[in-house]
């Protein structure tokens, strides 16, 4: 997976949606209870293990959080982190092979054949078609030779035959996460599988997998109107930072990524200091920690990679993308904002909440309920990530017969209100209670809790920040909201992207016959 589109305000609002509330006293109790249930340990290689005991049922969930994502793809190699994530399901020198020594030789041949083919393709004097044909043949043969040693899908098969549930991984711009749930008696087996693939990744079937990812791009971006629009939005809004780059990869780059590049990415970013592993469920830290320590100590040490030098420069001119497309209209506008490290991070969350959360939100009441011009309208506080300066989005889907211009006018009216008039006490209180509630609710789900603990442990070096963030939430004031709205929502900081429905070509439907 890669880039997420904004979570949309569901038309009609989800039936079983739930928002919750509690008081701060409840939270300090929770923090205390978690203090007793959570054990952390930093291994000599820098890798952090976090175990949270929650013995509700004889199962556990885990998260491996790698603090590297597609934003870290080197120039000319967009899509690399995601490609590596695919590779992590292909097994190791022990699992997925019939004879690794021989397979290794064959894989080296594949790489050499690919490099030779790529070199000819990029020949400055022009590629020689005859040479390309020969090199392609050699490349195909090398792949076929390597394939003979493969036990297909063995890593996945072992996990699934042992009860792996919601077996998954996600590559975002900011990070890569691997996760699943299992019966608790498979903890050691899991530790073996997971640590093996982190350490002993083999570039098996790499070039086949690259074609699969190209198909993924076709599906998510090229054949999807929203995918097309958001790729244009991001590449327009950013001029320097990698958030502006296609996360799944530009076609020309994705199609030329090599296994050598993927393994170099692995070597640089899959080091202990860049990884947090969390386990939540029916486990006892006293018994589980030594097991995890034994397996995850194999991960190489090494310095935590430096963050990138590029900082997106200040935008000084409004930009607009208009996509003429056969699909129905969508309107989006985006404003640059700082990263999650900014003290104003929670203020952006407050604004997003007040303008978009539920049927009391300002955009719903104005555009959906009262003016009846939009099917949905909402804001999103951070996109496409939040580790680096990102974008605050407003988006709307016009009702039939209504236009993007009407969406813009109404959204700007709401923005002006945020700038000139304080939000109400009720609105601010709702934001705070909803935030507390959302956090509390998430505590009852092994996988959700595991993912959250991993994120906070990785970002702040302390999972307690998951609870302490509420102190910052509580301190948000009406003045903060006006100040941030005035600083952020200005035309020169804006990028607009919209789909304007183009008249479809004459209704042709004869493509089946050739």
């Amino acid at each position, binding site marked *: 997976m890669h880039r997420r589109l904004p979570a949309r305000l569901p038309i009609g609002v989800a039936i079983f949606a739930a928002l919750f509330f509690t008081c701060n006293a409840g939270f300090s109790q929770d923090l205390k209870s978690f203090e007793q249930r959570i054990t952390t340990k930093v291994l000599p290689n820098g890798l952090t293990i976090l175990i949270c005991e929650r013995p509700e049922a004889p199962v556990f969930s885990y998260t491996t959080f790698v603090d590297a994502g597609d934003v870290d793809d080197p120039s000319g190699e967009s899509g690399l982190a995601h490609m590596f994530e695919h590779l992590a399901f292909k097994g190791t020198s022990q699992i997925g092979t019939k004879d690794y020594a021989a397979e290794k030789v064959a894989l080296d041949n594949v790489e050499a054949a690919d490099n030779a083919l790529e070199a000819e393709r990029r020949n400055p004097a022009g590629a020689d078609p005859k040479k390309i044909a020969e090199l392609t043949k050699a490349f195909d043969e090398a792949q076929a030779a390597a394939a003979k040693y493969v036990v297909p899908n063995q890593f996945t098969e072992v996990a699934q035959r042992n009860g792996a549930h919601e077996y998954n991984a996600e590559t975002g711009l900011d990070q890569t996460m691997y996760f699943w749930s299992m019966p608790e008696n498979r903890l050691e087996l899991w530790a073996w599988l997971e640590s093996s693939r982190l350490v002993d990744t083999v570039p098996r079937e790499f070039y086949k997998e690259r074609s699969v990812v190209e198909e993924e791009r076709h599906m998510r971006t090229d054949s999807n109107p929203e995918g097309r629009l958001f790729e244009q939005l991001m590449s327009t809004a950013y001029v320097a930072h990698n958030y502006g780059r296609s996360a799944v990869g530009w076609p020309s780059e994705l199609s030329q990524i090599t296994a050598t590049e993927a393994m170099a990415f692995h070597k640089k970013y899959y080091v202990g200091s860049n990884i947090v592993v969390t386990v939540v469920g029916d486990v006892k830290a006293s018994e589980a920690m030594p097991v995890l320590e034994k397996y995850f100590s194999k991960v190489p040490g090494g310095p935590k990679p430096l963050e990138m030098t590029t900082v997106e420069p200040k935008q000084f001119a409004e930009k607009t993308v208009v996509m003429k497309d056969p699909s129905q209209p969508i309107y989006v506008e985006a404003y640059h904002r700082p990263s999650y490290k900014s003290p104003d991070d929670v203020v952006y969350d407050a604004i997003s909440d007040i303008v978009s959360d539920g049927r009391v939100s300002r955009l719903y009441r104005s555009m959906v309920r009262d003016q009846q011009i939009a*099917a949905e309208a909402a804001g999103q506080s951070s996109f496409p990530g939040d580790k680096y300066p990102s974008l605050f989005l407003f988006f709307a889907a016009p009702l039939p017969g209504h236009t993007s211009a009407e969406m813009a006018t109404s959204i700007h009216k709401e923005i002006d209100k945020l700038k000139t008039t304080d939000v109400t006490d009720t609105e601010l209180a709702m934001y705070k209670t909803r935030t507390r509630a959302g956090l509390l609710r998430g505590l009852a789900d092994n996988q959700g809790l595991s993912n959250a603990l991993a994120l906070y442990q990785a970002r702040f070096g302390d999972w307690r920040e998951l609870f302490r963030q509420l102190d910052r939430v509580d301190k948000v004031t009406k003045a903060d909201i006006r100040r941030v709205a005035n600083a952020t929502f200005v035309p020169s900081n804006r990028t607009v992207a919209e789909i304007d429905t183009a008249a479809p070509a004459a209704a042709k439907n004869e493509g089946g016959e050739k």
Partner: protein
Amino acid sequence: MRHNSDQWSVFRAQSASRFGGLVLAGFFLLPLALSAPAQQAQPWEKIPIPPLHQFKPQEPKRIALKNGIVIFLQEDHELPFVSGSVLIPGGSRDEDPANCGLIDIYGQAWRTSGTEKVNGDAMDDLLESKAAHIETGGDVDSTAVSWESLKADTDQVYDLAMDLLFHPKFDQQKLRLAQQQEATGIVRRNDDENQIAGREAAKLVYGADSPYARQPELATISKVTVADLQAWHDRTIGGKLLISISGDFDPAAMEAKLRTTFEKLPQTKPNPVRHDDFAGPKPGVYFINKEDVNQSNVEIVGLGIDRHNSDVPSVAMMNDVFGGGFASRLFQTVRTKYGLAYAVGGGLSFAWDHPGTFDAMVMPRSDKTVEAIQRTYDVLNSLVNRPFTEIELKRAKDNILNSFLFRYDTKDKVLAERVRLEFYGYPADYLETYKAALEKVTLADLNAVAKKYIHPDKYAVLVVGNGSEINPGLDALKMGPVHNVDITIPQPGAPAAGRGEAEK
């Protein structure tokens, strides 16, 4: 009730997955590799697997009232919340086809309208200030009111939910709002290739006018009136309600409260009995042109079975071998061996009270469409012609049985399952007997159900894709004439909401 027949949901999850491992991982494949007997223990086979901790899922308390209403109470004191739901039999399959879309609109307008005492907007304000929630919704066979709140607000939110259940006041403005939402969904329904394929495949299997496939149109939703919403409410509220409560409450007090509310109601009316015809698709190739895509969405579809069918455990195992896992025949062939697509999946689904569908789905790039369909057919034919192996059966059993625990690893899942079984009239111990039956499935069973239920010559092949890029064309399949399906959205004089024409 949400229809979650196993294989269908597995398949859907895969086709929608955006992730790297699940759908994507299986690429190459030497199908024989796994068939070779292991000579020595592999490293992972040496890792001990101790016995699983003892676990008895907590069953909810079932209370059957004399009037036919059934209540389930599931205590869960981990967090200070209480949630509840009243499930009401009767859904979109029971609506008047001339008003198709009524239930969707009802599900929205019921809550947004509110009651005599508290209108929907006031309810929003009240609930949001407590971060509580009350929602209504409609599905194919039921509607529901559900609520959730902090423990301290349990009584107040319950009273409000009951007011909404028994005294709704449907409002013209909110009806119109719901119609606009529905109209937007209709106007946008051809934007996404996947959505088109899913919808049109169901129409091929069940028939375009079937209660399980028909779709709302601008004309049918515009006919819905406030009186229709009230009539639907009056018609269904006297049915066999199913009430479920979970969370941090005192069970004795909660039971007393529910009895006070529901015991006084008259004897419930029996659930509507349906007499639907399920003929299955007309075999052939069907095509829908979409010029802005570079991938085809192929669905090969037929009729599935009803979950009451005693063959279901064997079919579930067959599904795993066919298209359920990475080592399944469909993955190994279409994905791994031929590398034809990113997303493939399929199976014979079983719905709780009517036949599900058979579906094999593949998404190849445009120019590989014909080849992908042919290879998928090879796999379909293999189910009938190539006997299943012990290795395939063992793998399917491991896959299904070792993760079976995740069907009841939370109190909410246990509760949801019991409500589902009660709603569809299955015994309370269904999950246990189902698991026992899965364990007993034999090779002979697998071969028998494949012969009984897999009929490649009876399926419809639906392709949504870019005709100008599909080369060779679909006539190369030599499966008879290609039927073009018209999905143009019918435009009545004016859209439901009466605010101008849809954009052309």
